């Protein structure tokens, strides 16, 4: 990154270095002043008193609220990921199918559900399970969250699979057909394994999206991390400290996942066989633009 970016300015000489130092000092003072104002405002409202933060030193806060919340978040994300990958691969195969009706049906399905907000699908699934299937109790919100996340993310993964297959050299498919495999078997045995490998970093980045979106389960009363944090905050009267802790947990987990995606990306790039990873190229390709499944890894 720095190699591409540093071309914007010369290697600084002594004068520029002095100027940069001045700007850096002024800039950091500005940022520090901003932070100081925020912290002072929080302190003035009594957000840094021991009473607000001491609950986090007590084990019961973690064992009764934050850890069960985290567990609920991870459970919902886990099932959604598994289902989304399975459905996404099936949908992706459908979009690449030889049979036109299958291709169109999967295309319409993917384009439609990619355009609908996840929260709306969660609400819809929740009420269908409630009124239609008449599920009740603890399973209801969990099923709603999983259904909403699965619908949306399987469409995103289907697009990832499709563009992964599209980025393979044409010879792969031709070779498969030439040795007498049917188009479907070629897809399944030759193209798909390579496409999934190429798209692995993007799929891992999608995990971050799923984990973040599971917080939408708040609205259908799923006791995930944000909701259990809110319950805790209502009890202890420390909303802001709790939200800071909850945010830190999310940031830590998602940061590690992003690192994993980068690591996979680098490994795949240096592995030296198959096509180079199309990380930036499909981003610009106009055919991908609507809805943009291929947007920056970790996209909203």
């Amino acid at each position, binding site marked *: 990154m720095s190699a591409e*970016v540093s071309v914007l300015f010369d290697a600084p000489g002594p004068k520029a270095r002095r100027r940069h130092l001045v700007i850096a000092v002024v800039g950091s003072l500005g940022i520090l002043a901003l932070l100081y104002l925020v912290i002072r405002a929080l302190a003035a409202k009594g957000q840094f008193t021991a009473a607000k933060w001491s609950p986090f030193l007590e084990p019961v806060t973690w064992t009764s609220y934050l850890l069960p919340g985290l567990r609920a978040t991870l459970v919902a994300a886990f099932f959604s990921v598994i289902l989304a990958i399975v459905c996404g691969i099936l949908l992706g195969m459908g979009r690449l199918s030889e049979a036109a009706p299958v291709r169109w049906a999967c295309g319409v399905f993917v384009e439609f559900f990619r355009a609908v907000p*996840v929260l*709306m699908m969660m609400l819809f699934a929740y009420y269908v399970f409630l009124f239609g299937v008449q599920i009740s109790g603890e399973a209801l919100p969990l099923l709603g969250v999983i259904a909403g996340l699965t619908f949306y993310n399987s469409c995103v993964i289907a697009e990832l699979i499709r563009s992964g297959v599209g980025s393979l050299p044409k010879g792969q498919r031709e070779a498969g057909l030439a040795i007498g495999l049917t188009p479907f078997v070629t897809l399944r045995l030759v193209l798909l394994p390579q496409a999934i490998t190429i798209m692995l970093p993007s799929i891992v980045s999608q995990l971050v999206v799923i984990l973040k979106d599971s917080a939408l389960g708040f609205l259908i009363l799923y006791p995930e991390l944000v909701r259990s944090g809110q319950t805790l905050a209502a009890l202890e009267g420390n909303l802001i400290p709790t939200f800071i802790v909850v945010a830190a947990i999310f940031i830590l987990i998602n940061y590690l996942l992003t690192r994993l995606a980068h690591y996979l990306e680098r490994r795949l790039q240096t592995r030296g066989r198959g096509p180079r990873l199309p990380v930036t190229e499909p981003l610009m390709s106009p055919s991908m633009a609507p809805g943009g499944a291929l947007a920056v890894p970790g996209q909203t």
Partner: protein
Amino acid sequence: MLGGLSDLLAEYNVFAAFWMTIKLTVAAAIGALLIGTIIAIMRVSPVAVFRSFGTAYVTLIRNTPLTLIVFFCAFGFYITLQYRIGAQNSPIDVQNFRWGVLGLAIYHAAFVAEALRSGINSVPQGQAEAARAIGLDFGATLSKVVLPQAFRGAIAPLGNVLIALIKNTTVVATIGVAEASYLMKGMIEFRPDLIYAIFAIMATGFVILTLPIGILFTTLSRRLAVKR
């Protein structure tokens, strides 16, 4: 069933809800573009402190759920800390709207910054080198040569951010802003028997909002792409 549906549409104002979605989108998009451009410039600036601040902003914000950011604005800053945006005596739903817009803008600014950075990376090195060779400094290189091309190169990813923003405006339903998904919840609870029709109407509304924007940005990115 059709009679029930027309009763429902008479009872609930679907257009007002989608108008709210559009207002949220426009306001948050302007905010996100402003903040995101500043962050993107910081990320490529020669001063290391600004670079790390930009990176920290993107890393922190991108890994936090939007729900949490919106709550932080509405429940944290507004309810708990009693901060108000704009007029002190404005009613609670106006305040919720403004804090919701701020939350959306803060969150999507991180993605705008990433889109712009990918646009800046798509500008060939020779452009910046040529700008420096004719004696432009960092500010002029960026504002006269690189950024105009970067914006054009970033149109496709920016379009994706805008579409994501339209869909993400539904998150402010959690703080009670009466936009499309908030209305849908009310409608379903009022007439559970019409649940499929209600979902079809509201989902189609979002398809109508996002599809033309997707097509528009695809066309724009193709037409405005810098010929190389």
